């Protein structure tokens, strides 16, 4: 293979790699949880309006009240949110925010956006809380713990 051919093929490979990275960047899906729960940031409490409509990236606006969460699926990092305050003094807020590429689920705080909090507080990583056992499951675990362990339990043959 001539050096010219090698350079051409390497350039093509590099271009494909760059294109792949860019496609991943713009196509990566995120689940946004639009949240209207009150938040306290640096000792200051932010509350959402009584009734708002929220639209992300030009999607159909959704009605929301206080202390609610809705789920929106988006792709890419940069997003545009339009919040229309319906109750009280009607106003429309349009902001842009970014979701880190590897953050699958993000919590978007509406009170923080409406209250002009610093942009780094608008989007936070969402981590699902550990599920608590139901009373029946707790009783089951307690029952399991109370059972005597056979002395040779570890030497029992495993099922095929």
């Amino acid at each position: 293979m001539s050096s010219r051919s090698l350079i051409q093929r390497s350039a093509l490979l590099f271009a494909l790699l760059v294109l792949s990275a860019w496609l991943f960047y713009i196509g990566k899906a995120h689940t946004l949880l639009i949240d209207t729960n009150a938040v306290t940031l640096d000792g200051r409490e932010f509350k959402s309006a009584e009734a708002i409509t929220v639209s992300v990236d030009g999607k159909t606006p959704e009605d929301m009240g206080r202390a609610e969460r809705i789920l929106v699926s988006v792709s890419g990092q940069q997003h545009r949110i339009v919040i229309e305050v319906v109750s009280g003094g009607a106003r429309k807020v349009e902001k842009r925010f970014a979701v880190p590429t590897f953050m699958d689920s993000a919590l978007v705080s509406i009170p923080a956006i409406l209250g002009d909090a610093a942009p780094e507080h608008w989007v936070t990583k969402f981590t699902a809380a550990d599920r608590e056992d139901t009373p029946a499951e707790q009783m089951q675990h307690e029952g399991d713990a109370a059972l005597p362990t056979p002395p040779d339990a570890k030497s029992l043959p495993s099922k095929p």
Partner: protein
Amino acid sequence: MISKLRLFLIENAVVILFVLLIAFAIPVSGLPASFLLQEILTRLGRNTFLVIALLLPIMAGMGLNFGMVLGAMAGQIGLIFITDWGVVGLPGLLLAMIISLPISVFLGWLCGSIMNLAKGREMVTGFILAFFMNGLYMMVVLYAMGSIIPVFNPEMLLSRGYGIRNVVGLDGVRQCLDNLIPLKIAGLNIPVFSFLIIAAVSWFIVWFRKTKLGQDMRAAGQDRAVSGAAGIPVEQTRIVAIIISTVLAGIGQIIFLQNLGTINTTSSHEQIGMFSIAALLIGGASVTKASIPNVIVGVILFHLLFLVSPMAGKNLIGSGMLGEYFRQFVSYGVIALALVLYEWKRAAQEHASRATLRGGAPADGKEAAA
């Protein structure tokens, strides 16, 4: 005049047979024209690309490329990865195509190299190679993924912790090509963008035939010995034909599956070769000659028969399963019929040329076949 008519009937025997079958089955099925038209439009957008992938190996004299299944496997691996990584929409599909590209090229090179060792028996070699590679594909998808190859989405894994589930939903990319340019005419949804892609690849095939490499392929397809003597690297040209076919099959499988919206991990690729080859042959192609019109006519006739046969079977004998059996019968039967017709024509041609060399006039029937 009679021999011309006979020649026409022999050349188009498969197409005529299927037109007659469909003409009988459509009224029996009782399906409305609007339904059939919508389904045919959808299936044209879904399947045509895969059938086009078969054209270049035929041009290079390698017959019907049953090895296209290898490309379909590569396309599926690309789709599995983008689903795992959560890349959606058009970028997701393009990324799946890029991922499938090196796998398709490698598998195409492997397939082409093996076919060069089995010249004259490319079809059966490709068929068996597809079975062999299916085993390797299963090993990668059902064992290596999740154990050796990292899979980040636990919902895609089997309950044992490794291996991809039998069905993978493609919700993120479902019909994103078909709906990219929405167009509705008289209540019919037209997959405009899919048709544009098909038009582009058809143009590529037509353009490619005129290039130096395309001419080399045609020459190698007509006579390997003469082409080799003329300085054409026959084996390399044949490998390139199979590589392009495999790459197109990979992209075609991605287009096919984005329309369906799910991957059947272990079996989506298995029937693709058989159905695509059957569609091409129904369109009037042969083992040595195929064109874009053969592809379009074949996809329409084959899928029209697919659509109407279950209902026609139900209305005729009270069992919709007849249509399902009929699909299998048609797919394998038409390939067998086309191969028999090809061999018969070839034998007739050889007989006629031998008779000409001996100085005698060829018999009427043989002349017609020739």
